[in-house]
């Protein structure tokens, strides 16, 4: 008399690593979204400077901070066909330079010709950016200095240049998050991919018949056993086949008997002829007692069946909740 098999829906064998990997990719996205909340504007000003006449902003108090840095963004605006070299400087209270960045800015226009068509183009590169992290609390002054301002025909221009200066603090460099996101996504994908290969294959037997059986030693209260039955049949198959799995213990007593309906997938070539018919059934079990167990599969109706493969894996993990047949030790 077989012991009653208890079926339970369980999350116990879920592959936590897949969720940790996917979750960490989610955290990169959250980190990207959260970065905007740390930013605080300090200065937003439009000023004018010319050669020999740098422009100075009001001194700002800065202090060392663990998260984020101080960002100075400067955008020059100049008419077309001019080149401008300017420097963004940070100066301390003694007017000594703390940091300086050089920008070669330009604004040009021209005519393009291609395959008999013509048109005009206009491009520019006028913005400079300097990010700094403070070493100590101090007052700094932002200075923008025009070093060289010429036309494209190399004539000096003695005109003021308008600069839009924006200073923010708490800036987080989101450029680092992109490799983190793509690299993380790739690794998380590999984690998912290899999740299916977890576990040891105990039985892998394929025969050209509708019945297959094999005996092996396996089991344990904490090991999930996955029994996969793969069927190949011919074009005379019905749309489904019936798969019966029986498990016998070391004494030959039947401890498990269950049947499943296997839906078949018919693959056809371009003429509509059936080239292959395949189907599979999966059983999840816990065999509480370690021992010798025989697995016997029978596919009915047997006439169209070409081959049956029995795969038994132990110690497998799953991506979601599964229904597990629990076979207790008292059997």
């Amino acid at each position, binding site marked *: 008399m077989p012991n009653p098999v208890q079926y339970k829906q369980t999350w116990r064998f879920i*592959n936590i*690593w*897949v969720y*940790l*990997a996917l979750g*960490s*990719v989610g*955290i*990169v996205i959250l*980190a990207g979204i959260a*970065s905007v909340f740390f930013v605080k504007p300090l200065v937003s000003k439009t000023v004018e400077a010319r050669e020999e006449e740098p422009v100075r902003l009001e001194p700002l108090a800065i202090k060392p901070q663990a*998260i984020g*840095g101080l960002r100075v*963004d400067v955008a020059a605006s100049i008419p077309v066909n001019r*080149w401008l070299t300017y*420097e*963004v400087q*940070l100066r301390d209270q003694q007017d*000594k*330079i*703390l*940091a*300086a*960045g*050089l*920008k*070669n800015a*330009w604004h*040009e226009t021209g005519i*393009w010709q291609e395959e008999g068509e013509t048109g005009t183009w206009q*491009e*520019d*590169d006028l*913005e*400079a*950016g*300097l*990010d*700094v*992290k403070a*070493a100590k609390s101090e007052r700094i002054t932002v200075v923008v200095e025009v070093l060289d301002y010429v036309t*494209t025909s*190399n004539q000096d221009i003695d005109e003021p240049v308008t600069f839009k200066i924006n200073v923010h603090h708490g*800036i*987080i*460099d989101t*450029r*680092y*998050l992109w*490799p*983190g*996101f793509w*690299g*993380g996504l790739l*690794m*998380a994908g*590999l*984690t998912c991919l*290899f999740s299916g290969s977890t576990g040891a294959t105990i039985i892998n037997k394929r025969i050209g018949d509708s019945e297959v059986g094999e005996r092996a030693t396996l089991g344990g209260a904490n090991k999930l056993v996955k029994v996969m039955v793969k069927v190949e049949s011919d074009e005379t198959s019905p749309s489904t086949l019936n798969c019966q799995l029986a498990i016998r213990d070391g004494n030959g007593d039947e401890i498990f008997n269950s049947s499943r309906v296997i839906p078949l997938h018919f693959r056809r070539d371009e003429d509509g002829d059936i080239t292959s018919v395949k189907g599979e059934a999966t059983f999840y079990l816990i065999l509480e007692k370690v021992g010798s167990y025989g697995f016997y599969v029978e596919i009915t109706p047997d006439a169209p069946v070409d081959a049956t493969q029995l795969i038994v894996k132990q110690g497998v*993990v799953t991506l979601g909740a599964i229904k597990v047949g629990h076979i207790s030790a008292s059997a």
Partner: protein
Amino acid sequence: MLTKLFAVTTIGVVATSILAAYTQRSAFQLRQERQPNYWSRRSTTLSGGYRRGIWVVSPTRSSYGSFRGGSLGVGK
């Protein structure tokens, strides 16, 4: 187990990138001679560096007059 290895690598990659972003590793460290992690933005180049705590202008700054414009395809 391969899944563990890949998952730990994923977490490592993610943690490194978030740490680098939030500590603003790419920023210019004021009053530091060495700037190994400086990552310029908007093609703004540093025009000097510190030597014994004093800002020293780099020789390339004096050649700014040699900049002669961008061209089609260089801007954005």
